[in-house]
């Protein structure tokens, strides 16, 4: 399915009413870090803040029914398919500009707490590999296009160990991300693999040469001096689109009908979440607003 022509799109959104708008707002619960990316999920707003509940070191698949809060996009439309038409974003904060807002489809996460963060070594993950079935967790067959990041979902303690994630690629072959240096004492949401320094990767961890996605998270390995405290998640997501926000209070609108590739699909079950890059340290209490239009046919 999808839109065979501009006429089909216009017919769908005017005659048939096959469109809707989604909205998200977040108030940042802590000051950000200049040059780093932040997962907006742990910050309050609409949807409400997420705490990433789950059994340690077990992959938690998420979709648009995730109890901790999703940006609702109307549920399953199969055999029709949903597509982004446009999106807009604004950030209001005394400091931190300019920003980038990135929409991601959060396929799932792996929580790590207590000694899985405060000790070094290999932390083995339990996960059923992503396959190519009709299940929501397999909405990107065999993990095609999926990316990895590591985010703090509570404030982190001192120390900055190095970290690597072992995974299986889309063909089930073993791979490892490039090793990154974590960040000490960051606030909630901070992506530990990002920042303005050596051994940082913004916003996603590099995969092994030639790899195009991740079907299975095998383990996370901390080395060096462990974080003194904190909880983190390994995020597994599909990047969807990015919006620049040049200055506080400005609203940027992006058209996805005439972009290339155009009309990016929203798979049934997509759990749309957001990442934010900040050039400076965004002020605590700053607000982030995102909306997007979508249609289906």
């Amino acid at each position, binding site marked *: 399915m999808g839109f065979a022509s501009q006429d089909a799109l216009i017919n769908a959104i005017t005659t048939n009413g096959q469109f809707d708008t989604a909205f998200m707002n977040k108030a940042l619960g802590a000051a950000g870090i200049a040059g780093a990316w932040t997962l907006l999920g742990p910050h309050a707003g609409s949807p409400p803040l997420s705490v990433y509940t789950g059994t340690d070191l077990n992959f938690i698949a998420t979709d648009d029914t995730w109890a901790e809060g999703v940006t609702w996009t109307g549920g399953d439309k199969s055999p029709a398919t949903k597509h982004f038409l446009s999106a807009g974003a604004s950030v209001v904060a005394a400091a931190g500009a*300019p920003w980038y807002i990135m929409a991601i489809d959060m396929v799932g996460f792996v929580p790590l707490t207590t000694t899985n963060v405060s000790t070094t070594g290999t932390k083995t993950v339990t996960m059923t590999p992503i396959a190519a079935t009709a299940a929501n967790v397999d909405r990107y067959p065999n993990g095609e*296009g999926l990316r990895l990041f590591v985010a703090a979902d509570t404030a982190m303690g001192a120390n900055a160990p190095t970290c690597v994630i072992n995974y299986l690629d889309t063909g089930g072959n073993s791979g490892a991300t490039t090793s990154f240096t974590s960040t000490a004492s960051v606030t909630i949401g901070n992506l530990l693999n990002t920042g303005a320094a050596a051994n*940082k990767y913004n916003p996603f961890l590099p995969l092994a040469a030639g790899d195009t996605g991740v079907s299975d998270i095998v383990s996370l390995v901390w080395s060096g001096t462990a974080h003194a405290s904190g909880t983190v998640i390994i995020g597994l997501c599909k990047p969807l689109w990015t919006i620049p926000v040049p*200055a506080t*209070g400005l609203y940027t609108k992006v058209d996805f009908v005439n972009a*290339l590739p155009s009309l990016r699909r929203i798979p049934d079950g997509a759990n749309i979440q957001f990442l934010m890059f900040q050039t400076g340290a965004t002020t605590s209490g700053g607000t982030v607003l995102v909306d997007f239009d979508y249609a289906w046919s």
Partner: protein
Amino acid sequence: MPGFRKIAEISSADKEGRCWITQFRKAVASAATVQNAGIDYSYFAGSPPANFYASSPLVSSAVESIRGIYVPTVGSGRKQFLNNIRIMSAASGATSTANGRQLLLLADYLLYYPFVDTDAVGEEQVMENTVTIPRYPGGQVIAVAQSASSAIGTFTMTYTNEQGVVGRVSQDNRTFIVAGGGQVVNALGSGASYNSFVNLQAGDEGVSSIQSVTFSVAGGGLMALVIVKPLMLMYFNQESRRTTSSNLESYGACDEFQSVIHKAGMPEIKDGAVLNFFASGFAGSLASSILVGTLETIWN
């Protein structure tokens, strides 16, 4: 055959994960830069980390991969292309407009020769070519200051061109006065006709290696000669800032380039590429401004 033959292949590459988005942030140092002249963003702090061209003087060296904006290695049988780039620049202060209007050149940094003494008048500084140029048969040469410089200098260089012809001699090139490292110090005329690339011998289009440099007039500093492959020129318009007094106003723009639309040929990014930017600031000094952007690649 690698490459894209139709739009559907671009969509398929995106769907199948043969794409990458990376993001960079480069903070220019506090020393004033020369209006209308160039700077080398790779030299300044941020992500990727600063590239000071710090290796043995006059010995050829490849720029370390960690000094470049990260892009994946796609392997043989595939070609990776620049798909999209979005650029913004944070002003150095609430009222500064000096970092608006930048001409940006995305380049693959290939080879460099550090610590050329621009005061060594009459002395032929002979290069040691222990490392050969990677990825391309040749590229353009950019002179990057590695210190402040105090005078308008004049130099020539001998080189091998990209056809492999040895013994080529550049035209007279000028250096000029700058306040710190990271600034492009190449000019023509009396030293105020700023030029991105070192002027070569007539008929040459690129350089594969440099054999020597000779200054006839002292420049009062140190510089690196860097061979780069230019990939894409782009323009950045308005700085990002927010006033703090009177009527509070926000300013800023993001410039976006979709390479298949805005750049004939869709620049190829070869495996191992070390990507970074040169820029000319036409509105004033770029000191303490911060360039940020996202860069998307796609391969087939």
